[in-house]
């Protein structure tokens, strides 16, 4: 009876099982890295907008307050995008002929809202109340980053559930006093370890149940 397989096939056969496992493990690792990547989550994405609105210009250079345009962030479940009228408060007076602003003027005239591309888009099965966060010590820059330095608005967080959970489990390190919410360059002060729990108490945040499914999935 002739040999069906040469001697080298012994090594091949023996190496095949570990190789298979390594390949499978590698594939799983790649997949897991993939879904955590910016490419998959959309982090760092700058969606194209009908008007190239610059937060940097309006916040840092002009010095506008967030609430001038996002008027009801302290009250509403949705942060809200200002209507063209708000833009035209100033741009009815300055740069009123700029071609760049033509869609804003058209919107103000026709009352058809501008179709902005949503930068922070949560899935529909997530119930997110924007004002609850803003009024309980979560500052703008915690989620939106340094908007005052963005030429075009960019998504700075991956918006994956583990990120939500991380803060819901232990909010104290991220909490700010009520007068620091809109501070763009806020960084946790040296005594955040003491201030955090204190703020937790002041805002009346109960940590138990903050990660229950029904808090966000209703």
């Amino acid at each position: 009876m002739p040999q069906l397989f040469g001697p080298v096939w012994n090594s091949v056969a023996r190496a095949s099982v570990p190789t298979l496992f390594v390949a499978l493990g590698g594939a799983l690792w790649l997949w897991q890295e993939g879904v955590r990547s910016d490419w998959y989550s959309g982090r760092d994405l700058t969606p194209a907008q009908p008007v190239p609105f610059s937060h940097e210009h309006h916040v840092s250079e002009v010095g506008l307050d967030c609430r001038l345009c996002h008027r009801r962030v302290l009250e509403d479940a949705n942060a809200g995008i200002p209507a063209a009228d708000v833009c035209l408060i100033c741009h009815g007076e300055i740069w009123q002929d700029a071609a760049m602003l033509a869609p804003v003027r058209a919107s103000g005239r026709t009352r058809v809202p501008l179709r902005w591309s949503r930068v922070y888009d949560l899935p529909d099965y997530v119930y997110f109340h924007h004002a609850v966060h803003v009024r309980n010590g979560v500052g703008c820059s915690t989620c939106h980053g340094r908007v005052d330095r963005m030429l075009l608005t960019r998504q700075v967080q991956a918006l994956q559930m583990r990120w939500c959970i991380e803060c819901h489990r232990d909010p104290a390190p991220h909490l700010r006093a009520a007068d620091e919410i809109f501070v763009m360059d806020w960084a946790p002060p040296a005594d955040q370890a003491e201030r955090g729990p204190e703020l937790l108490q002041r805002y009346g945040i109960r940590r138990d149940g903050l990660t229950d499914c029904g808090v966000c999935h209703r």
Partner: protein
Amino acid sequence: MTRDVPSIDAGVETTFGASVARLPWWLAVGASASLVLLLTAAITWLFLVGVGIWGIRMPVGWGFAIANFVWWIGIGHAGTLISAILLLLRQGWRREINRFAEAMTLFAIACAGLFPILHLGRPDRFYWLLPYPNTMGVWPQWRSSLVWDVFAILTYATVSVVFFYLGLLPDLATLRDRARGVRQKLFGILALGWRGSARHWREYRTAYWLLAGLATPLVVSVHSIVATDFAIGVQPGWHSTLQPPFFVAGAILSGLAMVFVLGVPMRRFMGLDRFVTARHFDALARLTLVTAWIVGYGYACEFLFGWYGGEEVELAVLGDRLHGGRAPAFYAQVTCNVLLPQLLWWPRCRRSPLALFGIGCAVLVGMWIERFMIVVQSLEHGHLASASGAFQATFWDWATLAGSLGLFFLAMLLFVRLLPPVSIHEVKEQVADRPPDDSEPPRPVARSVEELRGRGAGRLLLEFAGRDEIVAAAKTLRAAGVAEVDAFTPTPVEGLGEALGLSPSRVARWTLAGGVLGLIGALGMQYWTGVVDYPIHVGGKALASWSAFVPIAFELTVLGAALATLVGLMVRTGLPRPHHPLFAVDGFERASQDRYFLCVPARGAPGVGWAHQGLVPLRALQVREVPG
């Protein structure tokens, strides 16, 4: 008919290789393949449109898909019962039927596994059921019986595949040694270089028994866990401790029915009647009768519990069965599962393939109705008036059910054509050796041993005609002090291991280690993910619900032990080893068929001089030189 070792290979080969009943086979393939096409269409439409194409409407959110799942997974159980439990009980008659019963198990699990995934609505996300560090930061909810299901079925499928493949391994070597061309290469790859070494047989048998021991509790546990999907819910008709044993009995009943439905035509059209005899049918029929009684007892208990509990909704469900809209289904179920099997009290019926085939078909239908009634009828009757409604099956419901039958039968049909439907080595084990006939006179020494030694031959291969001869020879050699003797045989030979002085198998240590690792891993995983990393309060249950951790801990113990047994066997035997010097020896291909070989060092122990005796006392047929 003569039943001896050489006749078995040819006998089994004609059942699947040759042209026995080609036309019925092709007709069956055509019918099954058409149903598979229907299944493909049904699944495609499901993926395009969604689960709304089925008849499921609230409150009946579980329709055909879950009933089919419960039905199919139950059918698999008889295969494991036959292959594992009957092995441990030393029921010799299982050898002829265990192979196709195990194949039946595999394909039934495959069909069963299809349904929960289709039912998910987002089938592409089925992996969310598994615990892995995901971007959501959540873990499965260990106190849910639906998660237990995932582990029970994965374990059952894995252990069944391992058990099936291990049982097939020596047969694959036989096929490799009998086939030619591409088939030989393919079987050669699958056989992993199995050469029937006595050392390997010893480890192999231990591993096979260990796996049988591991598969045995799965027969009980898998469908018990499936039953908890229902028993844990508060739906009328579900919330009862009766469910687990009731489900298991039904599973075995439906599985035995499928054995008849498959076995009778296979025997008729594939020439299996030389292996599967009236004796097998008789034993299986008795088992069927017993399980039918257990199932009937379960039906009686359902009524007793409902009546004794006196709860309004429970009584409404039972009333619906007796004289409501679902009464025809209920009476059909009782007739098929309990009344018709009573025919098996008659020996004539137990030995009539046609009667058994008919009863098998009836029980399969009856068991499907039972699964449908459990799933759908209970959901039609909620505790609240608003949670009541009727279920109406759609075309796509029926198409998916029929399609899964097509998938199952197509897989079986391909299996019986591609692999031996009867375990060759196990059947050989219980039949006599054929003494070499006169046309082949014993040739004590092909070439003189002196010459072989003079040429510096390293090892010699001695060929024997039977088991008695090889054991006697091994004893003689051992008594003469010849060391490093190995034997190569088509079946495990009783007493050969002792005659060769082999050390006992060590595979069991691997099994134990794997089981312990699985147990600790499962408990640790559930505790860490559910208590430490993400504690979720569900229905006021304790976070560390150790009793709820038991099912998964059990399943992963079995899984770990089974996989470790396989690894242990491979490590102890040095397989896979597709190249071996022995394979180059002319005639060694018969080591997997009908001849027995001893491999001894040519020089032997100094001063013994067994070779000088010309090997005549050893009664060897031939001596060959092993190259290399």
